[in-house]
């Protein structure tokens, strides 16, 4: 078990590419933290420097307040799980899992006991005699997890461990990883580009972009209180709708001449800036569609996508395209003209530098 701390960590490649920029992050003891972001955002580099697989340029990494960044990888006590499970093809599942213990020259009886225990936890006792070529993708990944687990490491580092598996297997295995982690309480950092996976598995999520930490929080924090447009756009499906706004005076705005009602905290935030190039952000869940009304934002329905008890409705408005989620029994027909209204307390405003004006405001 360990509490991990990144202090001002930066990593710059010889060609000048900045993989990690001034990272400050605490991973609490026993927590499952997800690093989420598009490819190239620095999420994999972050766990690779923690594991000691890569060096970094500046800063320090601490485990339980002791510096570990000068230690060789094997002394850092992290177990890594990759997307490609890298099993030894000539060894059975049992021997693959036993490998880290044999390397430590533990007594045979202890090795047998520990591997058997892991096999039971991962429900794969019946597979122990098989070689990797006779295991399915999901089973191989379980063996990979077992091999990482058997060492009882201080931390678990997982780099897109389920990336290449079939959808239904991903859902099954991520629940298993979460269960295992809850049971063992091992500090875990899990890298993914898939927000659904992050929302399913993490205590907290770190959103990264271009080597920089953008925001840390629960899924709901990111969903309801994104600090900038990148996070707002990256988290949430279907994505947030963005509409350009005009400032009508110090604390009010309009979209194509239609006044938008704002909550008091948002009006207060608006008064603190002179910025005139603001963007309004609205979650598709926060739109309501009704009959068109004069002097309101109206639009034409371009597409209706049923999803069971709700539907995703695409609307073309004079301000740009919008997406609304509405209950199935109230969905409009394609081609219909509709009026759009939205809950004032759920709106987001972004300034010309893409920062949220109401960052940390509201209890959305």
């Amino acid at each position, binding site marked *: 078990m360990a509490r991990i701390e990144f202090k001002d960590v930066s990593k710059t490649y010889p060609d000048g590419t900045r993989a990690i920029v001034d990272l400050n992050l605490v991973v609490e003891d026993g927590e499952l933290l997800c690093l989420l972001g598009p490819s190239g955002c620095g999420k994999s580099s972050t766990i690779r420097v923690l594991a000691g697989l890569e060096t970094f340029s500046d800063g320090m990494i601490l485990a339980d307040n002791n510096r570990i960044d000068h230690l060789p990888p094997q002394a850092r006590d992290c177990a890594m799980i990759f997307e490609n499970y890298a099993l030894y093809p000539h060894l059975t599942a049992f021997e693959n899992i036993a490998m880290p213990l044999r390397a430590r020259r533990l007594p045979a009886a202890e090795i047998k006991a520990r591997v058997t225990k892991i096999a039971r936890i991962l429900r794969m006792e019946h597979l122990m005699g098989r070689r990797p070529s006779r295991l399915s993708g999901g089973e191989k990944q379980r063996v990979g997890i077992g091999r990482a687990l058997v060492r009882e490491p201080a931390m678990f580092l997982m780099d897109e461990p389920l990336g290449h598996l079939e959808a239904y297997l991903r859902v099954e295995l991520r629940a298993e990883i*979460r269960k295992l982690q*809850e049971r063992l309480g091992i500090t875990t950092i899990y890298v993914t580009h898939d927000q659904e996976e992050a929302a399913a598995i993490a205590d907290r999520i770190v959103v990264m972009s271009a080597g920089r930490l953008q925001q840390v929080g*629960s899924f709901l924090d990111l*969903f309801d209180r994104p600090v900038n447009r990148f996070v707002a756009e990256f988290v*949430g*499906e279907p994505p947030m709708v963005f509409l350009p706004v005009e400032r009508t005076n110090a604390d009010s705005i309009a979209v194509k001449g239609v006044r938008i009602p704002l909550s008091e905290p948002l009006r207060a935030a608006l008064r603190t800036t002179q910025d005139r190039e603001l963007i309004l952000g609205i979650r598709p869940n926060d739109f309501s569609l009704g009959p068109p009304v004069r002097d309101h934002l109206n639009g034409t329905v371009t597409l209706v*996508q049923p999803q*069971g*008890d709700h539907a995703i409705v695409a609307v073309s408005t004079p301000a740009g395209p919008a997406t609304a989620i509405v209950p199935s029994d109230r969905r409009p027909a394609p081609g219909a003209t509709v009026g759009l209204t939205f809950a004032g307390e759920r709106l987001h405003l972004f300034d010309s530098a893409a920062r949220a004006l109401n960052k940390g405001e509201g209890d959305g």
Partner: protein
Amino acid sequence: MAEVQLSGVRKRFGLVEALRGIDLAIPDSAYVCLLGPSGCGKTTLLRCVAGLETVDTGQIRIGSQNVEALEPFARNVGLAFQNYALYPHLDVRGNLSFPLRAPRRRAEFGDGEIEQRVKSIATLLHIDALLDKPIVALSGGQKQRVALGRALVRNPTVLLLDEPVTHLDARLRHEMRVELKLLQRRVGTTTIHVTHDQLEAQALGDLIVVMRDGLIEQVGTPDELCTRPATSFVASFVGDPPMSLLTARLGQEAGVLSLRVGAARLRPGERLGRLLGGLRDQDVEIAVPAHHIALGHAGDEQTIAARVQAHEWVGRELQIVVALNGSPVPVRLRTQQRLALRIGDEIAIRLDLESAHAFDSKTGRRLQSSAD
């Protein structure tokens, strides 16, 4: 543009019977999704229509023509796959024009016409700025657009899509779905789209064909599948999240019909009661939509004890997957409550059975009243 008709189509690979008698009529200009788990035969069916597989028995008609005996190129179908299958050594223009320059087509199109067709399809798909780019320089979404363009460039009679957006990330998947559907509306080409994702099928399909083990379970509009699932398998496959299936034992208590689920006894409610009224002492399968399952208090009426298997955020809602005593099938519900749950926690769930569906436990077929 044409309708597509399959009758009695069978296909076997060695010992595996991939298609076990498929009858299906796809109307002209329809967008049809073939939906089912892996191994259900949906991709084999698509490949049979394309001519990439020959059928063992049965007929496939495109428009007025029997095509089972025709070579793929002679069927005039456009194909796009999950893995794009683009030619890496050609640029975007080369890939888009490829079907028009294929050896068998050489006499058909002049250079001027090829260029004009490539330009118009590229404009339609918003890739006109990329025509001179090599394939390796494209993003996933751009590659998928090129693959679609290549499928559409020769104005196919039928467009065949195999998991075309599955592996794109969430944002792009959403965008591409909208584009696909709008594009199909505009060009009006009859489209068959294979997917394992029921939300994708519901979002796109005018009709959804649910398949299982080489057979069709149900053909219907998205609404029909949700409001009148023909089998318990279909019910367990539709909805967001999908409906939950319970096995219940029918019984009588003081002359009143009751449903026994594990140790719990539930009242079926008026509608379901009427449906089950004639049955005695037998098992039925009940499918309950997720928004008719809520958290409850142990011991209250209509509640069942359950153990948390998984919990995850979906937008602002917490989705909870629970296991019931004695039932292997997980039950899914969503709540706006902010709970700190742990896997293994004991909770109670409350079931509203008024809109539940009932199925014969042996055949899986829907039980329905004459008024239903």
